[in-house]
């Protein structure tokens, strides 16, 4: 044995002996609490570009709302539209929701809105204290969960009795009289079943803005009940949400709402199970809401309409009710080198608009439509050897509309991936093609579509992406390079209506991520991103630059978190900084007191909202308002 080998062996033995001697039992418990992570069991190893928030990350970030997580998540971040609804891909449009390609799941069951598509419209700004950990996958990650096309998947995993048995109550109070109370109880039953139950009440009061004497408000009163009953092979979920929201600018062309409300409820009941190689699911979702908008300058707009024979909207009242039924079956066959998944999902969206009154005229008394979707998919993972995997997959969706058959579509999505791993390197190469159709609320919509009665072309996304990850000791370096072409993207015209864009949007992206876990309970994470988008309707090219810096530290009884998000682009020509920090004082094992400041510099990235002048009817300087308020929150939680 030569000298190098002897030194290595001595080093290994010494490290091991020192490690065992150094760690006291309380410290070991702290480390296990921080490191023991259920995402190790649930994450999709070959599922595109992944971003995992462990329970320890979520706790130390004091992330009580999904927007706290999404705002720094690659590749989309967090954004809110004119209605104050979570809409990361809003594309500066006036539509109520443009982010259907981001799909959200709780414990493998999809949260969906029958009318608007993705459940991000409901969950994007929801409380997440029932969640254990969060996984985000981008780049057409898998067909396993997708009934409908998904460019990005957000997976929330609820807390389980195996970790959280017992009860917790917590109270948060903060700026703008924001108050949030939640509690949960979870327990393992005498057989192998367990249950988790959660309730929250959130008066999510936000910063208000004044525009031309009108008040713009995004306040929300939210009641949320969540429950699960499960064993190793079966899970039943019930999720009930009731909301009363102020809907911000709403439909106002002039950004001057007088009345602007959106009250609704959401119900999800679902079951998923598996038996050997077979898995199955059945879910029911109901999303309904009543919206009411009256412009502050109603009389002036009426006069304009009368004088010019125009139809500017000064009021709209509408109700909708949407029910979604989903059933799915999958079969997984594994052999030495192949793992093949074949499945089919059938979904019915039954939605109705009622009592639609626009500018004091009853336009619709009741208009019911049914959309049926059948998706079949096949996915195969071929292990060339232990560290080289090829994944291939395709999904075919047929969409039939009972009422608007001109918008019946057939969608094809496919994906080819290659993963290479060794002890230090992970390389993922992904080629994917996704097609998506109009969400039901846009079909035949005279309010939002430029050409409502003719077929709108399906949107096609073509992506090539390369992800490289290198891990050495406690350092992880990651680079993501992607090139994407989007055909027939829905964009907005001068009349604020959507149409299928005739140019190809081209997006080139480069992102880097560095993680240094410099000891068991402390870490620093830096991400950098550059996007270069060509052929936008408003500007020919747009270059976006972003950076995030996060630090997690532990000192004695204190957990400290710092986060800085930086953004600029060559269109806004200014720099945005969202600095947040928090400290948790672990007074006892059961009692914790925490303080958090969000967007403390009040310089977080702003979103541009178009508005017209009531005098000239011409576009005037858009409103620039950040979806992230500057706020301070104090919280206390007690477990028992």
């Amino acid at each position, binding site marked *: 044995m030569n000298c190098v080998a002897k030194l290595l062996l001595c080093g290994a033995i010494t490290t091991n002996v020192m490690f065992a001697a150094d*760690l006291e039992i309380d410290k070991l418990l702290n480390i*296990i609490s921080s490191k023991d992570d259920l995402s190790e069991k649930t994450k999709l190893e070959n599922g595109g570009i992944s971003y995992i928030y462990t329970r320890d990350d979520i706790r130390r970030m004091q992330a009580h709302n999904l927007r706290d997580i999404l705002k720094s998540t690659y590749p989309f971040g967090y954004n809110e539209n004119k209605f104050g609804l979570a809409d990361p891909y809003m594309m500066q449009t006036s539509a109520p929701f443009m982010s259907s390609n981001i799909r959200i799941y709780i414990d493998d069951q999809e949260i969906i809105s029958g009318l608007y598509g993705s459940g991000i419209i409901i969950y994007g700004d929801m409380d997440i204290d029932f969640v254990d950990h969060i996984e985000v996958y981008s780049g057409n990650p898998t067909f396993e969960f997708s009934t409908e096309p998904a460019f990005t998947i957000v997976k929330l995993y609820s807390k389980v009795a195996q*970790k*959280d048995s017992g009860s917790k109550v917590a109270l948060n109070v903060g700026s703008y009289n924001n108050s949030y109370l939640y509690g949960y109880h979870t327990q393992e039953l005498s057989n192998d079943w367990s249950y988790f139950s959660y309730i929250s009440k959130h008066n999510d009061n936000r910063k208000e803005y004044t525009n031309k004497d009108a008040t713009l408000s995004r306040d929300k009163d939210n009641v949320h009940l969540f429950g699960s009953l499960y064993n190793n092979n079966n899970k039943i979920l019930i999720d009930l949400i009731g909301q009363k929201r102020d809907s911000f600018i709403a439909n106002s062309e002039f950004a001057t709402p007088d009345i602007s409300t959106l009250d609704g409820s959401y119900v999800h009941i679902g079951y998923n199970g598996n038996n050997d190689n077979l898995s199955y699911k059945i879910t029911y979702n109901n999303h309904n809401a009543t919206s009411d908008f009256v412009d502050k300058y109603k009389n002036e707009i009426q006069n304009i309409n009368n004088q010019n024979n125009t139809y500017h909207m000064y009021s709209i009242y509408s109700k909708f009710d949407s029910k979604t039924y989903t059933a799915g079956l999958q079969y997984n066959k594994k052999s030495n080198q192949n793992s093949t998944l074949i499945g089919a999902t059938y979904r019915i969206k039954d939605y109705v608009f009622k009592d639609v009154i626009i500018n004091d005229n009853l336009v619709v008394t009741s208009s019911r439509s049914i959309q049926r979707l059948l998706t079949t998919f096949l996915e195969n993972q071929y292990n060339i050897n232990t560290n080289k995997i090829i994944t291939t997959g395709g999904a075919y969706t047929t969409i039939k509309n009972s009422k608007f058959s001109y918008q019946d579509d057939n969608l094809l999505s496919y994906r080819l991936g290659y993963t290479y791993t060794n002890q230090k390197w992970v390389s993922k190469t992904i080629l994917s093609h996704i097609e998506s159709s109009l969400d039901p609320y846009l079909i035949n919509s005279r309010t939002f579509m430029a050409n409502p009665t003719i077929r709108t072309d399906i949107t096609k996304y073509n992506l090539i992406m390369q992800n490289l990850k290198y891990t050495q000791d406690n350092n992880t370096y990651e680079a993501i390079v992607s090139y994407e072409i989007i055909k027939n993207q829905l964009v907005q015209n001068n009349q604020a209506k959507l149409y299928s864009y005739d140019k190809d949007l081209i997006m080139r992206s480069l992102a880097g991520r560095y993680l240094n876990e410099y000891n068991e309970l402390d870490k620093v994470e830096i991400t950098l991103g550059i996007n270069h988008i060509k052929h936008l309707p408003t500007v020919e090219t747009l270059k976006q630059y972003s950076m995030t810096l996060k630090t997690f530290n532990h000192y004695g009884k204190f957990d400290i978190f710092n986060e800085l998000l930086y953004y600029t682009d060559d269109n806004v020509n200014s720099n945005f900084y969202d600095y947040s920090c928090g400290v948790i004082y672990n007074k006892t094992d059961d009692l914790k007191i925490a303080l958090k400041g969000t967007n403390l510099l009040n310089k977080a990235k702003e979103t541009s909202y178009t508005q017209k002048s009531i005098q000239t009817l011409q576009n005037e300087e858009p409103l620039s308002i950040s979806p992230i308020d500057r706020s301070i929150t104090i919280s206390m939680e007690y477990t028992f």
Partner: protein
Amino acid sequence: MKKIIFIIFIFVNLYATDNYTLKLYEAILPKIFDVPIKVYIKDDIKSILSVSREFIVVDSCDETVDILIGKHFDNLPESCQKKPVFATSYNEYKDNIHSFGAFYWRKGRPQIRFNQINLQKYNLVLPTELQKYMR
């Protein structure tokens, strides 16, 4: 030879830095029982403890086993039914009359517990550093 030594080096270090749960078990049970400890395990922890030199993990329970680790011990042979139990769930710790101690997650954090009455029943002595976990 260099390759073998290098693999040992990597393995030992990965093992040392990653498997904190194993370290915890190795920091507790060898202080109460003579090593190597012969254990019958009914829990996912079985694969973790199997690599340790401090434990001999057996697939079936008999009178030579020192302790049982895990939860839901159904259909044990009679020779095993009164063996001391180190539980891996709160319910098992609370409900099993033979459980002298436990390591489980509860209220969102990992916890260690020892039961004084059952420790005495099996003539087990806790070292000073573990006595604070006795409830």
